[in-house]
């Protein structure tokens, strides 16, 4: 019986690790579904293509070549090395050791592990460079106002995790005496093995086992860390690019509730005193635009969870570049943080949201930030995984103007002019063609 203790222990931590993760993923999905409905299931071939190109193919990452190429190294490494997880799980559950080695034979197995080792080493180097860029070179976009406390630590913790996991993987191989003696696949670890040459076989075995356990436990911790971290993008980038907007970037949606009202107003046959038909649904929404996360649509909320805070948006935002308060990254981070707050509120109140006197507008995002936007779409263009901060800004402006009449005074004048004389300036519509005779 005692001999099965490690297997049982392994099964338990595996179940706990995956179970807790699944619980959080369900919470994540519930929170995203707090958003309003929007149909993004049309034009499926284009959507699959975008996902393949942007998420799987990383094609927008290389718009910034240095970080882009380093990212591809880490990304490819992450995906391929995870194939090895299959063997680790089987070994753990059944007490085998390198179960695929005899099945695949030294050539194929060695080829696979050899590639994993090279990738692990490359990932390790890339992650070190990432850390240097963040902390020594201090690339500007990692040091903006919103990148203090947790967001700053989060970025570094992820890098430490990856450094440790890659090291453990290589140490585990380097101290595996049989694996080293077989000489197939120890492409990198053969150079690490000599560091351990003073240890006895017994000790090496202990080190190998320890590294093996730390590696799998580390992976499970990292998996569960995702939900609390910007690192969620490794999963959400895929649905996020699939459901991203396909229309031209300049095209804003036309609010349907407004269309119905305007049509009524313009219809000469409409009876202004008409009562709504019996049983007719009230189509006018409770609110125009968005003042809180639940006024946004679910794609916008998924955008917020997907954001990995790289700051490419903010570093190309004309308002931010000229010292204004607006940062598209902060818009996404605020949306996510408020959504998390709403989610926790729901958890604490038995599945029902209890008014906490807060909202996304003012408590997180100020009107000053919103009014600084030029709607130039640079943030949307730069996002490597299809996030649309502009749509949130516009939705919140709609709330400010249509619900609160809280536009800056000059914009109110501009709108009054459009209403009165069909131009943003105070010129008579009758003078519109004067230019031809001037």
């Amino acid at each position, binding site marked *: 019986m005692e001999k099965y203790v490690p297997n049982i222990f392994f099964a338990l931590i595996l179940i706990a690790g995956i179970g807790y993760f699944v619980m959080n993923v369900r919470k994540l999905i519930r929170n995203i579904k707090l958003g309003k409905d929007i149909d993004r299931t049309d034009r499926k071939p284009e959507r699959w293509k975008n996902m393949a190109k942007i998420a799987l193919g990383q094609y927008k990452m290389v718009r910034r070549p240095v970080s882009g190429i380093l990212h591809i190294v880490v990304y490819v490494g992450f995906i391929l090395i995870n194939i090895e997880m299959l063997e680790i799980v089987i070994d753990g559950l059944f007490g085998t050791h390198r179960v695929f080695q005899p099945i695949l034979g030294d050539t194929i197995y060695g080829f696979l592990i050899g590639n994993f080792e090279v990738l692990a080493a490359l990932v390790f180097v890339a992650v070190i460079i990432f850390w240097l860029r963040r902390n020594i070179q201090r690339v500007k976009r990692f040091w903006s106002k919103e990148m203090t406390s947790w967001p700053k630590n989060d970025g570094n913790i992820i890098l430490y995790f990856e450094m440790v996991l890659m090291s453990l993987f290589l140490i585990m191989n380097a101290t595996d005496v049989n694996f080293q003696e077989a000489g197939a696949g120890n492409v990198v670890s053969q150079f690490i093995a000599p560091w351990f040459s003073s240890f006895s076989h017994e000790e090496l075995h202990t080190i190998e086992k320890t590294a093996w356990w730390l590696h799998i436990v580390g992976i499970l911790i990292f998996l569960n860390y995702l939900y609390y971290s910007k690192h969620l993008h490794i999963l959400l980038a895929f649905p996020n690019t699939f459901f991203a907007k396909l229309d031209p970037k300049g095209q804003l949606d036309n609010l349907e509730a407004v269309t119905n009202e305007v049509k009524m107003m313009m219809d000469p046959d409409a009876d202004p005193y008409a009562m709504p038909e019996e049983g007719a649904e009230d189509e006018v929404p409770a609110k125009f635009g968005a003042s809180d996360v639940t006024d946004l649509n679910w794609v916008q909320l998924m955008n917020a969870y997907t954001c990995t805070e790289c700051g490419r948006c903010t570093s190309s935002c004309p308002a931010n570049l000229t010292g204004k308060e607006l940062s598209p990254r902060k818009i996404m981070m605020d949306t996510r943080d408020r959504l998390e707050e709403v989610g926790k509120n729901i958890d604490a109140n038995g599945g029902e949201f209890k008014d906490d006197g807060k909202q996304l507008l003012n408590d997180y995002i100020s009107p000053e930030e919103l009014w600084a936007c030029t709607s130039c779409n640079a943030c949307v263009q730069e996002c490597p995984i299809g996030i649309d901060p502009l749509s949130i800004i516009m939705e919140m402006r709609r709330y400010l103007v249509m619900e609160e009449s809280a536009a*800056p005074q000059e914009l109110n004048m501009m709108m009054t002019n459009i209403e009165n004389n069909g131009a943003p300036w105070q010129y008579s*519509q009758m003078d519109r063609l004067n230019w031809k005779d001037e």
Partner: protein
Amino acid sequence: MNVSTMADMMAQGKQPEVLFWVGAAGSYDDRAKKITKAFVKILDMAGVDFAVLGTEESSTGDAAKRAGNEFLFQMQAMTNIEVLNAYEVKTIVTCDPHSFNTIKNEYPGLGGKYKVYHHTQYISKLIQDGRLSIDDTNLKGKRVTYHDPCYLGRANDVYETPRQLINRLGVKMTEMKRNKSTALCCGAGGAQMFKEPEKGDMDINVLRTEDALETNPQIIATGCPYCNTMMTDGVKFKLKEDQVVVKDIAELIAEANNL
């Protein structure tokens, strides 16, 4: 200038091949009116049978929409669509990328479906159809840089057409460091044109003008009346108005062709 309105045309029982949507800036702003006139001269030279709405044209509602006033936008849009549809307009050309974007992308959902061209696209089509040619001697060798209007570039992926026209002028074109999809906004979009900027270190148009001046141009070309205003102000702010002019591509073509 001889410009027919749709009402004139209709009275004569005629349908022009294209409607020229002049836009508010092109109608009222003194600087933008020059762009309007330059484009009319080009249309005349190519023998294009066009008309304008004149006093029946009203704001597209773009600025209102981007300021958050969806009601006002849709009121404007539906009023304009009623007029356009009543005249059975099929094709529209405009010198304003904001009108271009709104009519092309946002009017169809409200019942206004037209073939919409930015004037650079329309001029390019006239050249392709053999109706217009550009004299490449008058501006030969001038140092030009091109500023991408956001609502033409990123918003609608029109990057190459304006550049092809500039290259036909025989000028020496130099790109700014931020160009095409990475171009910096002039600072006017999203209704910023009509308000003071928020507090910051500098104005966006100044930063963008610095981008342009780095290429040591004689001419900053663009394709938007609002960009034109912002860049002109930027050049003045940088005290370079004696050395650098901001011109619309239509003006450059009119100049090249001695119109």
